């Protein structure tokens, strides 16, 4: 039941927001809604863990073989928790940002959350597809309506990209539906399929491309830096913090267990694509002068490593991916908050125009440095745990022995590169001498300090004691490994 509330609360809250015209009121209302969701999410992963709370199923479009069924397992719990934490953080951090027509803005934000919650919990493929689009449409309106000067063309590119890939996925889902003996869209029927290897091979791509565009994996990434740059920062946080995880989630939930054979067979290809993307994005990030683009490319690099770890087909790598999905969400939202503060204060995001902020805004500098260290995976930060597990996974990949050295080495190089661009960014923003623009800077306000402080606490705590998060994902990884192993044996 609680899983249904996770979806319904933001949905209804969002629809109501359209009618709250007062700026302060609608902000307060959306914050309240997101806090309720946060409470529900924490409850569902701590004290309300019995199956009756975590699953929901109702008949829906019966003659189509689809039902409205939602379920929270380890994977969903981590991602819904991330979504639930991210929303209040985003709303508080952008409290001072002015929006025209705020009722529409916050309504769309909450509707996006509803879509995301649905995506992460759906156990029916058609329902999953519904939510997948439900999360996309409001984001399209958010970015096009409230973004920067090139927003319309850029967001349209993003939308066309994602939509094209997702309709191809729909065809794949339909094909799978006809393969199931009882003609059903349910996840269990899909998992139980024994698909011949050559069918798996092409069907895999129909679904994989949809998720690859979303993550994005090289060469499907071209929409991403532009969209991040042109969107309003609150929407960018949703996009990069949570939405890209939809792709990875789809890969883990809807591709791997259904096509274990193809997942294995194409592993080298996809890992190579991801690796190229990782190195390429890191190199470009080093060259960037625009803060938003820098973080956008760093996000491509980080997602690439997660994709590689997923395709390594190892339990330990999977653990790392689960950790890192959460951590990356937290870290990158922290980075975006700083970008938002800087942009609001100085009206620019150019690194070359900033400098010396540490003297003027020591609190901000301290907090950002910790977030940035988390982003480049320094030990004792949350990023380290995830990345360490993932590298371990990539090293123990069972695809081909000669390749794993290249993959691991490549991924490790990306860590060095990420240190280059992250530290470079910190240097250019905070150190050096102040210029005319940064001369009059003030420090972060209290609400921003509190919210960055909360993120920093999460970063450090999870860096020192990651066990709760690992426990959350543990049983899921076991079940997953069990699923794919059995299936693997039979196909071979």
């Amino acid at each position, binding site marked *: 039941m609680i899983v249904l509330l996770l979806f319904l609360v933001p949905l209804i809250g969002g629809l109501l927001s359209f009618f709250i015209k007062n700026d302060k009121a609608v902000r307060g209302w959306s914050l309240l809604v997101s806090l309720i969701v946060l409470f529900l999410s924490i409850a569902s992963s701590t004290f309300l863990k019995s199956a009756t709370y975590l699953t929901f199923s109702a008949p829906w*479009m*019966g*003659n*189509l073989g689809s039902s409205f069924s939602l379920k929270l397992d380890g994977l969903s719990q981590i991602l819904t928790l991330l979504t639930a934490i991210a929303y209040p953080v985003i709303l508080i951090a952008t409290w001072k940002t002015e929006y025209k027509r705020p009722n529409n803005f916050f309504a769309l934000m909450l509707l996006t959350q509803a879509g995301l919650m649905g995506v992460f919990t759906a156990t029916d493929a058609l329902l999953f*597809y*519904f939510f997948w*689009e*439900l999360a996309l*449409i409001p984001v399209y*309106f958010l970015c*096009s*309506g409230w973004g920067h000067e090139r*927003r*319309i063309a850029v967001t*349209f590119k993003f*939308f*066309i990209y994602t*939509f*094209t890939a997702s*309709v*191809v996925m*729909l*065809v794949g889902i*339909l*094909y799978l*539906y*006809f393969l199931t003996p009882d003609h059903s869209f349910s996840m269990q029927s899909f998992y139980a399929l024994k698909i011949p290897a050559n069918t798996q091979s092409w069907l895999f791509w*129909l679904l994989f491309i949809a998720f690859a565009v979303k993550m994005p994996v090289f060469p499907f990434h071209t929409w991403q830096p532009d969209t991040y740059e042109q969107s309003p920062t609150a929407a960018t946080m949703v996009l990069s913090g949570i939405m890209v995880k939809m792709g990875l989630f789809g890969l883990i939930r809807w591709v791997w267990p259904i096509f274990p054979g193809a997942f294995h067979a194409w592993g080298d290809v996809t890992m190579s694509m991801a690796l190229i993307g990782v190195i390429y994005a890191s190199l470009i990030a080093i060259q960037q002068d625009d803060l938003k683009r820098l973080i956008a490319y760093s996000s491509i690099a980080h997602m690439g490593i997660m994709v590689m770890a997923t395709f390594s087909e190892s339990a330990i790598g999977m653990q790392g991916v689960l950790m890192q999905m959460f951590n990356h969400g937290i870290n990158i939202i922290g980075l975006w908050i700083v970008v938002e503060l800087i942009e609001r204060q100085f009206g620019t995001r150019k690194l070359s125009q900033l400098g010396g902020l540490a003297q003027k805004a020591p609190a901000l500098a301290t907090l950002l440095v910790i977030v940035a260290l988390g982003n480049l995976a320094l030990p004792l930060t949350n990023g380290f745990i995830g990345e360490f597990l993932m590298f371990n996974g990539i090293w123990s990949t069972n695809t081909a022995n000669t390749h794993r050295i290249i993959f691991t080495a490549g991924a490790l190089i990306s860590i060095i590169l990420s240190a280059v661009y992250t530290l470079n960014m910190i240097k250019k923003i905070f150190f050096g001498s102040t210029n005319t623009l940064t001369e009059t800077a003030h420090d972060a306000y209290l609400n921003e300090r509190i919210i960055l402080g909360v993120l920093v606490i999460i970063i450090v705590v999870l860096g020192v004691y990651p066990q709760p998060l690992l426990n959350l994902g543990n049983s899921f990884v076991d079940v997953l490994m069990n699923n794919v192993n059995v299936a693997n044996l039979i196909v071979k």
Partner: protein
Amino acid sequence: MNALLFSALSGVIMMFSGLILKNNSTVRMLAHVLLLAVIIVNIVELRGVSFFNIDTKELLVFDRFALLFTLVASICTLAFFLVSSKDMVRVGSNYPDYFALLFFVLSGVIISASFKSLLMLFLGIEILSIPLYILTGSDKRNLKSNEASLKYFLMGSFSTGLMLMGIALVYGATGTFKTGVPFPFELNKVPVLLTAGMMLLLFSMSFKVSAAPFHFWTPDVYDGAPTVFTSFMATIVKAAGFIAFMRLFNDLFGAIQPQWKLLVAIIAAATLFIGNLTAVFQQSVKRMLAYSSISQAGFMVLAVYALNDDAREGLILYTAAYSIATIGIFGLLTKMKDYTFEGFNGFAKQQPVLAATMVTFLLSLAGIPLTAGFLSKFYMLRATINGGSIWLAVFAVLMAAVSVYYYFRLIQAMYFKDGSGNVSIQLSPSFKYTMVALAAVTIVLGIFPNLLINWLYF
């Protein structure tokens, strides 16, 4: 049967009503009442009560499929009346006659949905076409309207000729006009006469539903005709064409599928390709909608291709979803002064409610989930994949993705671009309520399609 007779009778009543009723609003009221009566008697017949018991000598059959489509068509006509009937005044001075002609078209629609004999198919298509030729040219002083009417008439009569020739050849091969009777020869030895007749019928039906490569008349005719009537032609009439198309190929040629399956697949792919790609380059919303109607036709051809239960259910849903959305968009377009995309700039600021309904319609046409348009496309894809052609389905969804481009251009103009070109238009509250109701229907059908489809069985 009920609806057919009522609708023909209503046409006659409307024709003579001009003699007595001098007031336009009274005429309009009468037309609405008559149409409502048509809908009600049709629902009554769907529930199993027929007022008339005329022996049609098996020329017509009023099965659930025909009745349900009649219901969809007449309800869409009602929606069309509610949205656009006031704008017909501006077309010309023969206000009651327009309603009469529309009722005659509706009779033709009903006949072509329920034919059991090729003669009735021909009659139905003709009864539906001839009033349309007149309506297309009803804006008498407008050169474009005249040109469109003449073009439509010439091309239409040409394709009618093809159809007659095809019917004659089929008669020559089978010895009967009836559909749904087994062929008098073995299926592996199909006579050339039948194949030739089938091809001619295929071409003429493709012409009627504007499937490529027989679509060239569509943009000019739709563009030239008075916008109110374009709305009707592009929706209900086209839908009827598809129902007839599907019935013909299901009942008559269903047994010789290998003969035409590939041809229909090619027509579907070509229609999707040409319709979508050309729509991308249009500057006028009206022309864009004309091409969009071609591309939507491409999806509906998939139903003819697949010919299974999914296809039948899906086609009904598709016609409903497509008609409602298109009628809604045309309804607003009729009231605009500037038909270009720029004319819609900044529309959302002036008319937030109407803009939201437009978004619903456009999303439905583009096939975004939670709208009826998505589910109807979904049914078509399902039917196609079930029919064994996954690559046709992949091609279709890629083309659907292209269609997003031009539908979203309108959304962008309304919401994200500034301007106030011709937005200062007068809109009555009743128009807004109708549009909101249509949008609501679109969404409800998108979540609970069974509300409509269950009528096929229960």
